[in-house]
């Protein structure tokens, strides 16, 4: 049988929330609940930042041999609108989420042609169940030029190789 791999979101603790049956919402609070609470407010000037979102691969059923080559990428198109962006950085371990500028890289520059290496710090191959590879920390920025209202959904892809 093939392995089962999930995307988990870490909020407040390193124990994550399985996002198999949900999505991810950037907000002004440190939790993994995708609701309409704790909305990001457009600032009068400059930018504000959401609480960061740590995402990590979780292997819930083990592979026959191993899992390796974890990669993550966007669709390359920021459809959130003017003044709204997503930045990211990578970590080997979880640390508390923050709502100040992480100074990361524009997530939308990472596409299928140039994916993010998600096992650069915690290197594979991985043979067992549990959290594997690196954590990607995502953060939404909202500038004073943004328009109010709900944004459209954006795609994130996690890829892995299995033998």
């Amino acid at each position, binding site marked *: *049988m*093939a*392995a*089962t*791999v*999930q*995307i988990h979101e870490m909020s407040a603790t390193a124990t994550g929330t399985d*996002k*198999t*049956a*949900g*999505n991810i919402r950037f907000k002004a609070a440190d939790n993994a609940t995708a609701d309409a609470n704790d909305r990001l407010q457009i600032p009068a000037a400059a930018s504000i930042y959401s609480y960061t979102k740590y995402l990590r691969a979780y292997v819930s059923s083990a592979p*026959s*041999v191993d899992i390796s*080559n974890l*990669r993550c*990428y966007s669709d390359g198109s920021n459809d959130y609108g003017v003044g709204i962006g997503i930045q990211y950085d990578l970590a080997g371990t979880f640390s508390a989420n923050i709502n100040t500028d992480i100074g990361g890289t524009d997530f939308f520059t990472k596409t*299928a*042609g140039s*994916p993010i290496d998600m096992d650069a710090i915690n290197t594979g191959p991985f043979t067992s169940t549990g959290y594997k590879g690196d954590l990607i920390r995502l953060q939404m920025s909202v500038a004073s030029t943004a328009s109010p209202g709900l944004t459209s*959904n954006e*795609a*994130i*892809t*996690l*890829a*892995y*190789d*299995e*033998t």
Partner: protein
Amino acid sequence: MEPSEVYVWEMETDNGTVIKQVDDDGVEHRRDEVDPHVVVRFTLKPRQKGSPLPSHSAIVDHEKQERYVRSFGRGFIKDLGLAGYGLKEYVNCVETSFYRLWVFSNGQCLTTNPGFEVYI
């Protein structure tokens, strides 16, 4: 059926032995049980009997110094809409010293050079 379960592999060695991912007794085998140096054929077959999906084979020509290198599956976890994040596609790949053959879960395939990566 999950995309990762659509195809099963089968390898034939240079002495005619055929090793199936799931043998006739239902026992599942690991790819690393087979010495890659002796593989002369790698085939992906639909797991379900009677499936309309095609089988795909890579024939390894040892006389032309071609060698089987490895095979693997590549999973793609994406937003499935209301169902949240899940396995959207699973592409099987067999790599020889000459090329890579990528087989998608809908039966389509793609041949690339050995160093090429497929991300969708």
